[in-house]
């Protein structure tokens, strides 16, 4: 109970419990905007470093854009495989976002500790083919480190990727928590999202993306 005085009868001791500081929000985006707006073309709700989203196309021609005040990746004539990250200058963070899963032809993920904006070297917490997966990526080569069953098509999961020191933890609410220990990418301070949409696939969705420390 923060900041509450307890005043008792005469002779009793009065105590005060100091307010507990909450986490600092480093970056926050509710993806509020007109449909079709690129997420890189507008300012997020909170961006303590500045610079907003930086998008990188690993394959395809699509872009992260806003649809119904959420972020999606457009489907294209080829596989669209993109990530977008924001600089926070902090490596030990908690990354949260609401991910809507598409089992067929798509995957959606939160990413943490991206080595830079143009190389896929990072930690990835994704929903893929009905599973939740924690992956390590090194120069575009992805390795599963932990996996759990139970993600359902079309369902929105409150997801958290918490990176602190060598602890890497991915939680998808109502499914499971995956934990792994590694010093890989430990000092990198860019965090964001990574989506894949295959030909004919329907994009996953991310909303309320937040990085706190």
């Amino acid at each position, binding site marked *: 109970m923060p900041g509450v005085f307890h005043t008792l009868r005469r002779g009793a001791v009065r105590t005060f419990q100091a307010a507990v500081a909450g986490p600092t929000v480093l970056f926050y985006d509710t993806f509020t905007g007109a449909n079709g707006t690129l997420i890189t073309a507008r300012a997020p709700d909170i961006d303590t470093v500045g610079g907003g989203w930086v998008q990188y196309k690993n394959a395809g021609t699509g872009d992260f854009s806003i649809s119904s005040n959420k972020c999606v990746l457009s489907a294209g004539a080829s596989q669209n495989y993109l990530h977008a990250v924001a600089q926070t200058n902090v490596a030990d963070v908690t990354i949260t976002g609401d991910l809507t899963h598409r089992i067929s032809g798509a*995957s959606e993920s939160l990413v943490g500790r991206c080595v830079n904006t143009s190389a896929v070297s990072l930690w990835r917490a994704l929903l*893929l*083919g009905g*599973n939740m*997966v924690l*992956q*390590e*990526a*090194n120069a575009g*080569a*992805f*390795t*599963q*480190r*932990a*996996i*759990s*069953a*139970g993600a359902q098509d079309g369902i929105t999961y409150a997801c958290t990727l918490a990176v602190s020191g060598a602890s890497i933890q991915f939680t998808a609410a109502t*499914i*499971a928590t*995956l*934990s*792994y*220990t*590694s010093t*890989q990418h430990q000092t990198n301070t860019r965090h964001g999202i990574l989506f*894949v949409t295959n030909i004919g696939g329907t994009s996953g969705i991310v909303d309320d993306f937040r990085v706190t420390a």
Partner: protein
Amino acid sequence: MIRARVMTQWTPDPVDGSNGFQLWNDLQAAGALTPGDTMTDATNQPGENIAPNPNVVIVEIVCAQPAYDAIIASPAYGIGAVLWSEQL
């Protein structure tokens, strides 16, 4: 729930091509997984060294009885692939 350490191999994930666990793919194909079953790399093998020769990885699985029964019954795994197990 059961926790066990099991020997398996790295294999490309059928959906995204990432290095994944052969045992997970086999259990999923067999319909033996229960929501909440988890599997974790217990080797901490550097990603740059996957897949080596011989290709072996030890995973820790926390699962409901059907997945464990499928491992024991599988000719590809069986009790010989299970390093240890415990009832949680």
